[in-house]
């Protein structure tokens, strides 16, 4: 309700009362939980177990950090390496495969188009069938392997990427294609040398959005890549939560550490994320 009153008095000058209220509420609702994570992460074990929102008696940042990193034979490091491989490889795969499919889908009218559209939408809506996917992966010898999980992430992420790419390809004039073809370019050269570079801005969007999705993915690694050796950061955090039942400082240090990559992403790509998510969401 209060926000509508903002409109009334808004245009000429800033509404200071409303601003103060909004900022206070935002601090309580959004800043305090993050501050709680940071504070608990640097406390000692006794104080952290009180679970209260207080200033640390002593700062144990380095000690807690080392303890978390060393836990379970440097599991967290392995998890970060795994998550990085997973994110980079599957996002790269999504970008290439989705851009190719979206390009033909947008440019060429054929009897396949209806089917492709249907499949793309199905991919957005249908929840993946978990156990049969495991069954297929087992048949292919890819169950519990990183390539298997990468392909699964690609398969589940394709639909969203194709929609984004298709909307963007539509804005590239066909004349460019024709010019390239007259220059003697075949389909492959046309796509990879002319079109693909022009997709840069939407590629950035897809990369940013999907990296966050894949990096934060918990369900797919849980089902398709179980086992300590293959742990990803989200699984590691989940497992730590049962191991650190009495060491909240270490649990929150872990949460803090895996929040850093998205934070960095956010600081660098704030504008693209916002632009990309809205563009994709509204058009898609």
């Amino acid at each position, binding site marked *: 309700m209060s*926000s509508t009153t903002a409109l009334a008095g808004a245009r000429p000058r800033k509404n200071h009362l*409303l601003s103060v209220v909004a900022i206070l509420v935002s601090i309580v609702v959004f800043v305090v939980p993050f501050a709680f994570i940071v504070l608990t992460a640097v406390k000692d074990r006794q104080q952290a177990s009180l679970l*209260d929102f207080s200033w640390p008696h002593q700062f144990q940042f380095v000690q807690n950090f080392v303890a978390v990193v060393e836990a379970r034979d440097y599991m967290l490091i392995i998890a970060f390496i795994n998550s990085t491989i997973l994110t980079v490889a599957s996002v790269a795969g999504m970008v290439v*495969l989705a851009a190719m499919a979206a390009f033909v889908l947008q440019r060429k009218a054929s009897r396949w188009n209806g089917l492709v559209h249907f499949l793309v939408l199905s991919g957005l809506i249908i929840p993946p069938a978990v156990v049969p*996917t495991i069954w297929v992966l087992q048949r292919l010898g890819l169950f519990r392997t990183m390539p*298997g999980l990468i392909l699964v992430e690609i398969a589940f992420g394709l639909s969203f990427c194709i929609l984004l790419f298709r909307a963007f390809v539509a804005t590239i004039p066909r004349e460019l294609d024709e010019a390239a073809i007259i220059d003697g370019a075949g*389909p492959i050269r046309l796509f990879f040398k002319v079109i693909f570079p022009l997709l840069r801005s939407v590629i950035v969007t897809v990369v940013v959005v999907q990296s966050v999705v894949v990096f934060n993915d918990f369900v797919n690694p849980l089902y398709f890549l179980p086992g300590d050796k293959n742990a990803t950061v989200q699984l590691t955090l989940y497992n730590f939560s049962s191991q650190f039942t009495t060491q909240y400082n270490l649990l929150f240090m872990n949460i803090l550490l895996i929040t850093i990559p998205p934070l960095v992403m956010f600081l660098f790509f704030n504008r693209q994320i916002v632009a990309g998510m809205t563009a994709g969401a509204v058009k898609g």
Partner: protein
Amino acid sequence: MATTSIHTPAKTRTTVAGPDRGRLRSPYSTWFYLPAAIVYGVLFAIPTFASFYFSLTRWSIFESKFIGFGNFVTFFQEPALVKGFTNTLIYAVVTSGTKVVLGLLLAVLLTSQIVARGYLRSVVFFPVLVSTIGVGLTFTVLMNPERGLINSALSVIGIDGPGWLTDPKYALLSVAAVDVWKGVGLATLIYIAGIVSIPGEYLEAAKVDGASAWQSFRRIILPLARPATVTVIILSLIGGLRSFDLIWAMTRGGPGFTSDVIASVIYKQYQAGFYGLSTAGNVVLFVVVTAIVLPLSRFLNRKEVEL
């Protein structure tokens, strides 16, 4: 697998793309679908079709035996599983409804003239990017009935807070609230995009005509932000119906079965080794999502055209 699907373009490059043939053939080769189609087909379409068969079997890791609709009968007879079914609907409706309302209000606020707008936008959006498991574990601690921050804060003003996650009355709704906390930023963002694209003259004109703030919200912003509303509803409904990780991180469906949703039931049956039953749950979820989302999106989009 990985290598073949990615090699395909390289192979076709040498064979198809001679300069002469390029001019004769359509430059938009249908083969471009192939790599995507293989990955999607093998790992998404085939399992989806296979799930219809496997949902009719009693399936252990070593063999499957056809038993007809037995799994579905079990699924709908067991109170625990039915509970998961109704909880899924409640969860999806509550989260998406709240996201629509809060997202719209926040978007109006964040497009108005207020101080620190950039900070507010960032702070509302940031939770969208944070790991769901991290958020879930953090709020589990904040919602601890005895020592948690929320109940300590409430006791300061004399309220004896409930066991947010341990009282069956509140467990599901508490998780839903955290879902909203984490997801409202995306809804807000979509609404901001919708509101910003409304031409400024409309609001100016309304103001000149003496329209109140409520009137211009009701008559201009609300109808023109409609595409954004459709997007928010559909996205958050799909997300809500399929939701698993937050619930699993916070309550694991507990206490007892009181906050189970279809996705957590699927996972529990999978863990127990009841693969047929788990897959039947998947089919149920598939039907529920399709039966709700498809007609709804048709309906919402049609209305949009009429406007």
